[in-house]
Every structure is written in C-alpha cells, then in structure tokens.
C-alpha cells in the first residue's frame, strides 16, 4: 500500500494515488479521511475520490509550503487509518 505517484505538474498541485487490498477498504479510508476539512488559513484545496480499490487525493495550493504541510498531515492520518485497517480489518477471528 504505497503511493504510486506524487505528481507535481502545475506549480502547486499534487495528486496522490493510494491502492488498497480491496475496494471495501479503499471506501472505508475514503469515508474516514473525507471528514476533516483543511484548516481555513492554509489555503489548500483537498479533494478525495475513489477509483475501485484506489484512493485518489488531489491537492492544490497557492504556496508550495502550504501544499507540503497539507500532504504531510494527510499522510499522518492515512497511515493511521491504514494501520487500523491492517490490524482490525481481517475477517472476524474465531
């Protein structure tokens, strides 16, 4: 579950594609991570979308600095969510 590409084409834009084991897990991560709004003062737009088992996150910002902090904090949440799914997301144990 590593990001495939962190593509920075336009000056301050970035798209991160995160593949998951199953579309269900991708959907869970999508719903969990969609809840939190970006802080108003960092002028970053974050849009999440789903492509089957891939979570696609698009960031755009007016300053690279803001873009970087937004991505860093997003990854912190993403990793925590992924770890939770890995640990507790298996089929119900006997």
């Amino acid at each position: 579950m590593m990001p495939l590409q962190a593509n920075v084409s336009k000056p301050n834009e970035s798209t991160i594609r995160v593949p998951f084991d199953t579309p269900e897990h991708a959907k869970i991560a999508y719903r969990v991570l969609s809840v939190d709004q970006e802080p108003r003062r960092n002028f970053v737009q974050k849009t999440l979308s789903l492509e089957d088992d891939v979570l696609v996150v698009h960031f755009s910002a007016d300053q690279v600095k803001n873009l970087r902090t937004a991505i860093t904090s997003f990854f912190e949440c993403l990793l925590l969510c992924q770890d939770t799914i890995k640990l507790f997301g298996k089929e119900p144990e006997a």
Partner: protein
Amino acid sequence: MVCALGIEGSANKIGVGIISNGKVLANVRRTYITPPGEGFLPKETAKHHRGAILGLVQASLKEAQLKPADLDVICYTKGPGMAPPLLVGAIVARTLSLLWQKPLLGVNHCIGHIEMGRLITGAQNPIVLYVSGGNTQVIAYSNKRYRIFGETIDIAVGNCLDRFARIIKLSNDPSPGYNIEQLAKQGKQYIKLPYVVKGMDVSFSGILSHIEELADPGKRRNKRKKQQDEPEPEYSQADLCYSLQETIFAMLVEITERAMAHCESNEVLIVGGVGCNERLQQMMGIMCEERNGKVFAIDERYCIDNGLMIAHAGAEMFKAGAQMPLEDAFVTQRYRTDEVLVNWRTD
C-alpha cells in the same frame, strides 16, 4: 444492555476503555511524559498517541475478553482539547466504526468526566468541580444541561501547577501535579500569594507569574529599582509548592461553596486530573463537613483522563437514542460543557 468502547486522546494521555451496562470491563492508558522543564506540544503528543493507540485497542479487547462483534457503539472524544491528538482518536474510531459496522458517537470530554464521576461515586445530583490541566469549571445540572457556574478566566488550575513544576524543574513522571503534592508535604512556612477570585470565576496566571519571580529571582522580569539593597528572601521549593497548593485550592473551595449555597446542594463531586490531589479533597472535605455536606472523589484510574469515561458517557447518550452520521464525526478544540443536551438524565 449497551457495551461501549471509548477512545480518549485530548491531551497527553491516550486511553481506551470498555464498559458494559455500567460494569467496567477494561481501562487501559498510556501517558506521554516529557523531560523535566518541558511541556507537551500538540505534534509530538499526536505522534506518541499514533504509536500507542492500536496496541491499546487490542489490549482493551483482550482485557474485556470481548470480540468486536460484542460491542454496540464506538465512542471518541470530540473535544475540547488539542486538535492533533484528538484527531488520532477520531481517525481510529471512525475506521473501527466502519470496519466493524458499529455506530459512532463523539463525546464531550467534560461530560465524560462528570458522568464517570457520578457512576463511580453514586453521587446523584452533585455540584461538580472539574479541575484539570486544560479546564477549571464549577458545574451544576439544571434542566437538561450541565451549567457552568464559575470557571477560570485565563489558564486552568492544572496548567498553573504543571508550569510551576516546569519552572522548578520537577519531574513530569508520573505527573507534575503529583510531584508538587509530594513536595508540598515537606513545606513548613506559608508564603503569601495573590488570591484571585472574581465573583464565581478564578484566575491563575497572575499567581503563576508572581510565584515564578519568587522561585527564580534572577529572572525577574520587571526589576524594581528600590529593592536592590534589600536582601532577597530565600524560599524553599517545598514551601513554594505548599503555598501554591493552599492558595489555589482555597480559591476553588470558595467558588464551589458558593455554588453549593446557590443551588442548595450538599454534594460535591471532584473530577479531572487535579481532582486526585488528596490535599484538595481534604480541603473540600473540611468545607463540606461544616455545611453538613458530602464530598465525592475518585482515584487516579477514573479521575485522570481515560477511555472508560468516554465509553460510559457515550453509552448513556446511545441509550438515549443519540446518533451521529460519519460526516459529523470531526473534532473541535472548543466545545463547551453546556453545549451538550443531557437528554439521558430524567431529573
């Protein structure tokens, strides 16, 4: 029969608790302890919590001998508190709620403390003194709300104690307040400090600046010209701790007593991290005795932030029919005690 799992992480403690119909099944907690002289910062605290939380969820299920399927509701602290550590609990709670297909509830941290205190002590309708590192409030229940009768107008009482511990470089293990309490027992002379009660409210920041100057005269910010020829009196750390505790606890007892008189109540419940200070409990006890009242206090397992109190308050809300769509499961740094409609109480 409601079985709830609660996750708390609004400050430097991260805890998970499981409660089933008022019966404690598990209550596990880890504390982020900083070196002497340093406080805990949001980012570092969140990092600590991220490393600890999943292990705690596993440990709590093991201790309770439950499977995820046995749970009815997942609860987390919605606020108030520091946003980054709060978010750690919220993310895990949301993910678990979706994975296990259980409803999710966000709980007000202060309400968690109050309901936990009522459950453990059996106090029916007490005046609540909620004292911790982030909050200082005198609360009474009336007409479906926990109403704030008095509170701090600047820093919390625990914050004042924590920062004083930092000034004199006391250890933060197990907690700065505990170490102040122990040192204060050796205090012999009372040093006069400002006593700041304003109506039903209290203020601690001025007391902190004052005692900071006494503790460290070299760092005096506004040097007064006159005093240069006078020798500076020397105070021991124990005397300072003793005097600080006596002064600020007296302030808290005063506003609590006034709230009791106003509400014609004779029960006091002390909750929050500072609430496990035995000197505060003792002083409150003396006041209550004089009024023929009764003080209810709880030990550090339930006093200091814990996941169980979130589970319990969440379970009460769940029983009363509360629901929360996932989109509303965010965190908020400011969330006042009286914002919550207490529809699980019938009195």
